[in-house]
């Protein structure tokens, strides 16, 4: 249902006397908690066992489910929640056990050099001997060590065994008669003797084996946990539904929290689009006992919902990205949509690329079940693609000059696509003029929109003096320019219109000033705005520049691809360079066209008449991430 319950909105928040907000915080919290659990579990599942989706999956919207599947019964909720909790628990265990294994590996590595030793590390000697087990600094052979010992203390009787040697360290087992302990300790200290960090009464090889055994056990447990997670991964869809279901219920409770209730009644307030009102009334009255009261919304406060036909509705996303219409604005979508398609095509300007865009977007729309917002983008780019094809044909460009290059290089005679305008061969100046002329049309359209906006807000002076006079001034200047270039009599007409309008501007632009001198002065100063219009117009030269970029880069890649000529190597070069080169060119230029067309709309068009600042109509509906209710999707589209 399309209702905006408008949290925190002054117009809807106030409750009449006798009504109070119901307490739902506990149930709300429970649903939010469950949704969080489900989402965390899904995150783990997606990280460990990602769902396989094809190329089509990239564009597809949420999986469609029926209402029966979506509205979970109590035991379904419990079982899905248990599964989600299992996933989280298993994931936690895995992390713990991995840490444990790392710790075991560390001790095992410390023990490893002692492996050949066949007494425990804690062995201190027999009744008559004293044993020393530990490391000494430096790498020794037994011979060298004994020599060194003899050099330090010739009297000492020391039995030594080199257990192992490592980097700058010798693992030593030494033994001396119990009576010589002091002497031996003295000698060993001078050699840099240190006892091992691990002091255990087990044999090193047993100790190592037991560590390995324990690590192995942990590894098995990790595998078990992974298996558990994998088995739950098959039930991923249940958890997805759980997550969305709980979020939706939470959303519902939040809305209920904002409604008022008495012992026996509930009061719900919200906005609904006028066109949806009869349907809403019908549904409510057929299902519930209700009293419905309708008021016109306060324009200053009401949220905004755009409504456009099939041609311009895809461009709503562009307007939304900028800012929705404020209370004084008109909906700029039809205007911006038309110019967006037109200019995008002019910048991308290649029939082959346009064809690819149309085919790809049509494929996604038909086969991938995209989400509503993805659907809107796809339709936007389909219109842009059509426009690109048309401009491509005007410029005679199909993957650049590929037809000419390939026919010449590989089939001997050149067949070129006929071009109405060829930027690379002399029509460049004309293209520049065309770009600026189209820019002029968009600016005038923007000023006309300002005219309409002013009239709508009852500002007649603004409409005629601010918008109207500038329209005539600019038209006069344009006629003057056209007259100079094409047809002399236009010059006079243009000059007369321009001068008359400029006088009008000087007389009217200072109309809010009381002092007549100040009024005249700000009138004259307003003519300085003409520089703004000039820079706006120049900005449209990007229409030509980006169009050129596309065709020049295609030309380069085509030339490289055709360089090998009619040989086996040449064909291989064609097969490799052509697709790769055009893919690069497509990517770079589609981005450029998207961004720069957007800029022309936001800076050059919107600055003329559009304020923005409207609040979006936030539908009270399923805010689903993973699944979509099939019935509701249809409703959403209407």
């Amino acid at each position, binding site marked *: 249902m399309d209702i905006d319950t408008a949290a925190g909105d002054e117009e809807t928040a106030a409750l009449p006397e006798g009504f109070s907000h119901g307490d739902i915080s506990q149930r709300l919290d429970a649903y939010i908690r469950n949704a969080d659990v489900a989402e965390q579990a899904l995150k783990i599942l997606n990280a460990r066992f990602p769902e396989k989706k094809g190329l089509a999956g990239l564009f597809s919207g949420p999986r469609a489910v029926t209402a029966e599947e979506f509205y979970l019964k109590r035991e379904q909720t419990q079982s899905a929640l248990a599964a989600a909790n299992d996933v989280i628990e298993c994931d936690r265990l895995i992390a713990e056990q991995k840490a444990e294994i790392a710790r075991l590996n560390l001790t095992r590595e410390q023990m490893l050099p002692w492996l050949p030793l066949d007494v425990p590390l804690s062995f201190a000697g027999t009744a008559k001997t004293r044993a020393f087990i530990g490391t000494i600094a430096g790498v020794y052979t037994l011979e060298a060590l004994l020599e060194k010992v003899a050099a330090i203390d010739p009297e000492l009787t020391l039995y030594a065994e080199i257990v192992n040697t490592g980097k700058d360290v010798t693992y030593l087992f030494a033994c001396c008669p119990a009576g010589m302990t002091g002497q031996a300790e003295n000698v060993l200290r001078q050699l840099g003797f240190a006892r091992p960090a691990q002091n255990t009464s087990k044999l090193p090889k047993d100790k190592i084996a037991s560590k390995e055994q324990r690590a192995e056990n942990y590894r098995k447990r990790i595998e078990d946990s992974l298996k558990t997670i994998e088995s739950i991964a098959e039930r991923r869809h249940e958890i997805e539904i759980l997550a969305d279901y709980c979020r939706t219920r939470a959303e519902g409770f939040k809305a209920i929290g904002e409604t008022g209730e008495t012992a026996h009644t509930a009061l719900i307030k919200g906005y609904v689009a006028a066109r949806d009102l009869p349907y809403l009334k019908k549904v409510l009255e057929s299902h519930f006992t209700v009293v419905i009261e309708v008021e016109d919304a306060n324009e200053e406060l009401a949220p905004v919902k755009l409504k456009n036909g099939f041609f311009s509705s895809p461009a709503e996303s562009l307007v939304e*990205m*900028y800012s929705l219409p404020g209370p004084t604005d008109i909906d700029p979508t039809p205007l911006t949509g038309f110019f967006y398609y037109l200019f995008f095509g002019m910048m991308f300007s290649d029939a082959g690329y346009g064809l690819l865009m149309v085919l790809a977007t049509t494929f996604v729309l038909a086969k991938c079940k995209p989400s509503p917002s993805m659907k809107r983008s796809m339709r936007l780019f389909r219109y842009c693609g059509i426009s690109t094809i048309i401009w491509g044909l005007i410029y005679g460009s199909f993957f650049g000059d590929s037809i000419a290059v390939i026919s010449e290089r590989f089939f001997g005679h050149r067949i070129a696509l006929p071009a109405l305008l060829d930027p*690379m061969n*002399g029509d*460049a*100046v004309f293209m*520049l003029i065309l770009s600026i002329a189209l820019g002029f049309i968009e600016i005038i359209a923007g000023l006309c929109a300002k005219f309409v906006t002013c009239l709508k807000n009852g500002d007649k002076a603004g409409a005629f003096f601010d918008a109207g006079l500038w329209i005539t001034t600019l038209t006069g200047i344009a006629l003057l320019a056209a007259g100079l270039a094409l047809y002399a009599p236009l010059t006079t007409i243009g000059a007369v219109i321009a001068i008359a309008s400029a006088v009008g501007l000087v007389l009217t632009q200072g109309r809010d000033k009381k002092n007549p001198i100040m009024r005249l002065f700000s009138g004259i100063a307003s003519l300085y705005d003409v520089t703004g219009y000039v*820079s706006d117009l*120049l*900005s449209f*030269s*990007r229409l*030509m*520049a*980006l169009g*050129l*970029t596309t065709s*020049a*880069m295609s*030309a*380069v890649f085509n*030339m490289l691809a055709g360089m090998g000529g009619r040989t086996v190597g040449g064909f291989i070069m064609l097969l490799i360079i052509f697709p790769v080169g055009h893919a690069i060119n497509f990517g*770079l230029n589609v*981005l*450029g066209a*998207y*961004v*720069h067309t*957007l*800029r022309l709309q*936001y*800076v050059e068009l919107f600055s003329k008449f559009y304020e923005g600042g409207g609040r979006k109509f936030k539908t009270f509906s399923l805010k689903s991430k993973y699944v979509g209710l099939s019935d509701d999707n249809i409703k959403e589209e209407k």
Partner: protein
Amino acid sequence: MSLGTVMALFGAAIATIFAGIGSARGVGMACEVGMGVLAEDSSKFGKMLVLELLPGTQGLYGFIVSFIVLTKIGVFGGLQNISTFNGWMIFAACLPIAIGGLMSAIAQGKAAVAGISLFAKDESAFPKALVSITLVEIYALLAFLISFLTVILL
């Protein structure tokens, strides 16, 4: 090969080199910051890419001008002898996009860095960042138009 041809070749070289250096630095700067933001939130990748690539057009403009010069002097078949005078003229025509491209791409890169920081803080500010960064572009565009029109009409 005449001195004129050599000068024209030098022109083609500087147009690609300097505009390319500018764009490489601009895009590089923007990408460095962009990666930092992506490390926090990888879902911003699509829009981030748009902001990162904006200082890249200058390199393309320089490249186009070079390409037209190269076709003009017949590097791709039948090298022509260009008079010394014409060679210098082509060289001069390449200067605007070479220098204008270099400076504006770096300036645009700095703007892109700031725009990305803005976008990272507030996702809804994307159009504002986008528009502000493209404001720099106009000067690269003017340089390109002058170079392009001169080269193609000479």
